[in-house]
């Protein structure tokens, strides 16, 4: 079975080749009267990264322990949390921050934390109200609203 360490070093190698390819859009050598080309710094550093990652890749075959890469007892929790974060960001683009983030808190606190509804309500409402007053009212930073934008027009009229 391929070790996780080998996979990560391999992924870094592929990424460095991708970066080198991208860097060649601009000159990677000396440009007369302009000095090193715009692509030189990223290109040659990516080459260095490719070499360093290659050494780690080769060494990963001979080193490392047989212990599992992820803790068997908690890997499911990590995967669910990471999945929930990605789903929340996706939902935020469509339904807005004031739907996605409270929903994340409710699901996380209930499902992962097993907390009671009173605590969940207090934390969710408190965080949402803080977000609105701190970012929107105090800092004038409008968080994404998605399809819920029309619902905020009366609030905008009240605070701005």
């Amino acid at each position, binding site marked *: 079975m391929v070790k996780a360490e080998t996979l990560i070093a391999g992924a870094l190698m592929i990424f460095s080749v991708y970066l080198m390819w991208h860097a060649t859009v601009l000159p990677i050598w000396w440009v007369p009267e302009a000095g090193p080309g*715009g692509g030189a710094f990223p290109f040659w550093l990516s080459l260095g990264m490719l070499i360093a990652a290659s050494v*780690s890749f080769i060494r990963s075959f001979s080193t490392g322990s047989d212990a599992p890469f992820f803790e068997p007892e908690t890997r499911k929790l990590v995967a669910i949390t990471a999945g929930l974060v990605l789903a929340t960001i996706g939902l935020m683009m469509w339904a807005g921050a004031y739907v996605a983030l409270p929903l994340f808190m409710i699901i996380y606190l209930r499902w992962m934390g097993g907390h009671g509804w009173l605590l969940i309500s207090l934390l969710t409402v408190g965080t949402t109200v803080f977000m609105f007053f701190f970012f929107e009212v105090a800092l004038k930073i409008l968080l994404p609203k998605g399809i819920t934008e029309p619902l905020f027009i009366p609030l905008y009229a009240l605070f701005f």
Partner: protein
Amino acid sequence: MEIIGLLAEGFATSLSWFNIFVVVIGVTAGLFIGAMPGLGSVNGVAIVLPLTFIVPPASAIILLAAIYYGAMYGGAISSILLGIPGASTAVATTFDGRPMAQKGQAGLALIAAAVASFVGGTISVILFTFLAAPLADLALSFGPAEEFALVLLAFTTFLGLGGDDPYKTLAMILLGLVLSTVGLDLISGQPRLIFFDQPGFYSGISFLVLAIGVYGIGEILWTIEQSKDGQTVTTPKISFGEIWAGFKILLRSWKTLVAGSSLGFFVGMLPAAGATPASLMAYGIAKSTSKEPDSFGKGNVEGVMAPETANNAASTGSLLPMLTLGIPGSPTTALLLGGMVMWGLVPGPMLFIEQPDFVWGLISSLYTANTAAVLINIALIPLFVWALRMPFSVLTAIVIVLCIVGGFAPSQKMHDVWLIAGFGIGGYLLRKADYPLAPLVLALVLGPLMEKSFRQALIATQGDMTIFVTRPMSALFIAIAVFFVALPIISKLTRKSAERSALNPAE
């Protein structure tokens, strides 16, 4: 005497009612952040940084420095009461702090930690006050060649002193440097590394996005995985008798405190070293110079004091190169540096000339923060005990929401929020495979300076690379950098030779 006058003017800024309020809020927040297992000063600063737009730059940096300070104090709380360090900087504090708590001396251990942190903080702030201006004056003579050589030196310290696999460290430094070039080429203005033609990449990758991803989301995922075993919180008993006993021990242990402070300050200045190795080294020195070395690890109060003095002194030490040279001494100061750039300030020697109110306001606020931290720390111990009993799922939910909103706020682009998630998950996987993340963050912050100075130096000399070794200061920095690069090879050869001698004693 000039320094005293400048410091007095600084106090005029930092002792305004608003800035005192900012220090108290920052220190209290830092204490809580430091006390929470899994969150340290770097996580606290990364999460709070986007919220600092609400206050002027001087108050913002005072707030972040107070959080940094508070977190250094707070790390000891969970080390002693929970047996797990609040941050890596407090690892050495668990060695004797936890046994003291188990013997019923949790209160004494907490007071000793707080008082030792205060001494470490005070000595290091005095050193900082008197070294900052001369170092800034020296840095004023630096040209592009010296700047490039200095940044190179900062990175090579990770290879020589970081203690991680040098190839993995190198890969992370180079990855950070390449990511710092995303966006518009700083000389020709042409776009480069615009992945998948996404317009969000035209403005580059913000250090804040990487920091929130790695130190916010990534750290939470890491802590979820590591926290499989439940921990029990020891309830400390604090009385005036305990406080008095703490001060008496302090007087007896002055040598440990002075050694820990000086060591911590100078080790803290090195980018790859910082508070964690400083505290471990201070612990080692305290143990080896003690009359009762066998009592260390079993609840010796000096084993708590030495690392706590050193980690606080190191946090001040790491601010010195950041403020005077524009080279951060730790990941947390890299974030402070990035924050200063975000607020329109240029860290480095010119700051002392152009923004003396800001610089001396910050330096004087370190005195205020240090005093506030020791008082608030001792006064709020019952509150920390309560907070440590807070379920981790509550903390996780709040931190993730703050990371998402805090990542969106500065640029107001969902592109950055996706990047945060990507860096968080990627950073978690890299950390699992033992790739160090501090060099990655530092490289992203210092990358633009490194590239700019490298290209400027070469343009000025028509491509003559010898400029880096013919200018004296630059040559000195390059020579030290070469030494740091060679250090892992030298240690490997020395180790092999020692092993050979052990196997063949007759030779």
